[in-house]
């Protein structure tokens, strides 16, 4: 029984981590699908999302959910601006230049956050600090909330992409740029929309995760690197791949931290990637050469 409890506890942790990672990876994979640019600044958007929520809650006493919505809106605007001002002018350049520009943007956002909020670690309060007991299994409410909200967001995103015309334009653009243009899809509009969605998802993920973690300017770095691992595993540009990959990494980390070593838990994702790509350079779920 004891073993089973510990096991279920790790499943719960895995779902929490996996949900957060999936939300971040989804934004990254959508952007990659449209622009074929690895957006290194995506982690900085995640960080900005946490700070905006934190700011709204501590400075203006805004309700947790409203703060999350506000931060999603702010980061969506930020992300769209990045597309307009940085990636759009570079759309005809080779692979190297947009990557470096994305890094420049990441460094800028981090330094700006540090300028505004300082380099210190901040703690964000959640109104949901209770603990639920379920048959010997203890679950902090915030964790259950993360799981519920993350999977709700995934369902909403799925319905948006599959059931609405606007959502379909994103999929069409990702599948074939020229074809999408031929049927009258405005490439600029789709690119902006995609960046806005990616930014909002990152902000929501950060706001959900922040109460059980810390808020600081470099908080996005580790998350974004893991999100890259996830979308490489899941196939870059693939939406289901991002969700499955996020859960794989989430579970690998929670079980690895518990059964192997919590010191090295942050390495697990990368070792997994290195091992998998050494055996299968094309990733787990994709076909064809890179």
């Amino acid at each position: 029984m004891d073993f089973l409890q510990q096991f279920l506890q790790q499943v719960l942790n895995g779902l929490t981590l996996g949900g957060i990672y999936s939300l971040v990876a989804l934004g990254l994979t959508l952007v990659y699908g449209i622009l074929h640019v690895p957006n290194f600044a995506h982690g900085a958007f995640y960080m900005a999302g946490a700070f905006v929520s934190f700011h709204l809650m501590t400075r203006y006493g805004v309700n947790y959910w409203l703060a999350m919505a506000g931060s999603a809106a702010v980061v969506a605007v930020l992300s769209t601006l990045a597309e307009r001002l940085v990636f759009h002018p570079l759309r005809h350049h080779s692979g190297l230049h947009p990557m470096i520009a994305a890094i420049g943007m990441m460094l800028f956002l981090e330094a700006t956050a540090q300028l505004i909020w300082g380099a210190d670690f901040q703690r964000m309060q959640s109104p949901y600090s209770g603990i639920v007991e379920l048959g010997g299994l203890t679950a902090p409410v915030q964790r259950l909330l993360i799981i519920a909200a993350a999977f709700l967001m995934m369902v909403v995103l799925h319905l948006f992409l599959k059931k609405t015309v606007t959502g379909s334009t994103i999929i069409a653009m990702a599948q074939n740029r020229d074809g999408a243009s031929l049927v009258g899809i405005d490439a600029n509009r789709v690119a902006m929309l995609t960046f806005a969605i990616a930014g909002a998802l990152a902000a929501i993920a950060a706001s959900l995760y922040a109460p059980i973690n810390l808020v600081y300017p470099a908080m996005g770095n580790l998350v974004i690197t893991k999100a890259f691992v996830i979308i490489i595993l899941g196939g870059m540009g693939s939406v289901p791949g991002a969700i499955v990959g996020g859960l794989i990494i989430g579970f690998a980390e929670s079980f690895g931290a518990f059964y192997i070593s919590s010191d090295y838990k942050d390495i697990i994702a990368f070792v997994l990637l290195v091992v998998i790509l050494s055996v299968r350079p094309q990733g787990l779920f994709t076909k064809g050469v890179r």
Partner: protein
Amino acid sequence: MKYLEGRIGWTLLVLAGLVFPFVTGNDYHLTVMSTAYIFALATLGLNLITGYTGQFNLAHSGFMALGAYVVGILTVDHQVPFWVAFALSGVITAVVGLPLGFVSLRLKGHYFSIFTLCVGYIMFLVIEKWESLTHGTVGIIGIPAPTGFGGYVFDQPRALYYLVFAFLVVGAFVMHRIVTSLLGRTFMAIRNSDELAESLGINLARNKLLSFLLSVFYAGLAGGLYAGFVRFLGPDLAGTHHTFEMTTFMLIGGIGTILGPLLGAIGMPWLSQHLQFLQEYRYVVFGPLIILLVIFVPNGIVGSYLAWKARRASNEAKKLAAPKAAQPVNTTAPQGGATHA
């Protein structure tokens, strides 16, 4: 400008470097300059794999830290003489780079960059967490200064400056020989197009790996010098921000040139010195600067100058060619008419 190109220009630069300690009377300036030289050496390495071979390696600072830790661990914990440890710093970095390069270079473009980003992170985390070997976050303290012949010790700023400078000059010269050789042309062919290079009979995997190994060898040596120069090491050296910084140097000076990365790596720290009131906020200025450069001056200072020169040369060639091309038409037309008549 023409006089300053080629050998004369390089000689002048070396002379300037030699005279610098006599011009500045300030040890602090010497330290800033020596640190800049060490990072310039590492940036030359990054430039070989990224600027000349077209593979953006984001684990570069990890390899630099590896070289530094080889020197730190061997000299402090195992009492190995500095120069033996230093020689090993380059070799061990290349040995570790061999399997890592082999695995990562099977991936192309973005995948290679993201993969090396992860490799760099692993290197950073291993250095930070493997306390029994690397002393973890405490770092390695008390690395001995490099020794010279007959008991001489490089512990004065001026002596260290010349030592580091000598390595940079040799490093830049060797790099110049590499990129102007057939091997360098091979790397550039790979940068310009994988498929085209392969169809010319170039072995992609072997040449990419060779470029990668040479590149990390430079990083390892630069790290070894860093350990002997700063004499204190922390895991921070492996942080990705150092790779990003070196990328900025390379980009500002001119990617895929020798002079460009040197200019960037030596000029930028001086610019930072003047922006010292910004300190850790310098990326509030430099971040947008990087973006603007990438958009408007994608070839950097040296690259833009070369492009301007090439444009001018082709314009002049056109001017010279134009009257010559016009002449035969004028002269042959009447002749042709004459033979008909």
